[in-house]
């Protein structure tokens, strides 16, 4: 009887805890990548809000060019581990005055990073007014 009561109590605890609100890890107060390279100070363009990601990912290259008057950006990301994991990224675009240029909503795009893989994350500005960009990466 005593054991049954204990088991029932444990089951109730699980039921109660399953109704607890789920906390999400939205970007906010993110941490910029501290290390740059090449001609770019990567921290000006890349925002990674997760310490584990900062440890596991490395931005190896950022390139930009103009195509049809629109800024095209390519950010190369290296998975420094042998593990496969998922990331999400989102480009934001800004005009020359620093005002955000919004396309059709801003959304997160999922990407799978295989072990030791280098992946290119590509973005194209929504309008010719966009002359600056920022990419946010999260788990």
């Amino acid at each position: 009887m005593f054991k049954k009561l204990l088991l029932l109590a444990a089951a109730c605890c699980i039921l109660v805890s399953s109704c607890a609100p789920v906390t999400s890890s939205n970007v906010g107060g993110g941490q910029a990548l501290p290390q740059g390279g090449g001609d770019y100070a990567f921290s000006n363009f890349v925002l990674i809000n997760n310490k584990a990601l900062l440890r596991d990912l490395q931005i190896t290259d950022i390139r930009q060019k103009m195509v049809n008057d629109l800024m095209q950006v390519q950010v190369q990301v290296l998975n420094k581990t042998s593990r496969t994991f998922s990331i999400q990224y989102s480009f934001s675009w800004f005009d020359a005055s620093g005002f955000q240029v919004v396309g059709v909503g801003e959304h997160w795009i999922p990407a799978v990073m295989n072990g030791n893989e280098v992946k290119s994350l590509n973005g194209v500005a929504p309008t010719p007014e966009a002359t600056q960009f920022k990419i946010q990466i999260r788990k």
Partner: protein
Amino acid sequence: MIRNVRFFLSVIVTALLGLALFGCPTTVQYGDPGAVDTMTLDFGSTDLQTIAEKMVQSLLVSPVLGDKRPVLFVSQVKNKTAEHIDTKSITDSISTALLKSGKVRFTAASEINKDLLEQLEYQQNAGLVNPATQKQFGKQIGADYMLYGEITSINKSAGRKKDVYYKITLKLADIESGIIEWADEKEIRKGSQKAFLGM
């Protein structure tokens, strides 16, 4: 002593049961429409947004656009998957993003041809519209290109594992010459596994 413990445990169990049954009121909260949607394997908002973004990016940097600001006619993406997908929503997202770029123009004929015609007939025939502002028949601009495509899927399941693969193909054809000037495809693969012990 044992009787006291049993009584105490009974009270706790009753309280926890009460919490479990009545302690979880429905709460409503706003979410981020751009957040990644992993609720189910079905075609979701993230798939729609990813497909639209990749297709728009590919078309915007295509040489076929250049500085010409061509006029496009959009044909709704065909759904060749086994599930219900609102392909008009995909088509709308793509055409809206393309239009906002300022690099293309769209003819409304594909969507509201009947309404346009009715409005023209009203202006011409109702006798209510100032002749100086009446719009004339035969002045619409003919589209240069037609944008069309389809979405297909392959579904597989084995035991507790499920896998779904979507492929969307879009093409841009020159209406006069019939030549396909641009085409691209985007693939999405999603998988799920049922937990062995799930609630």
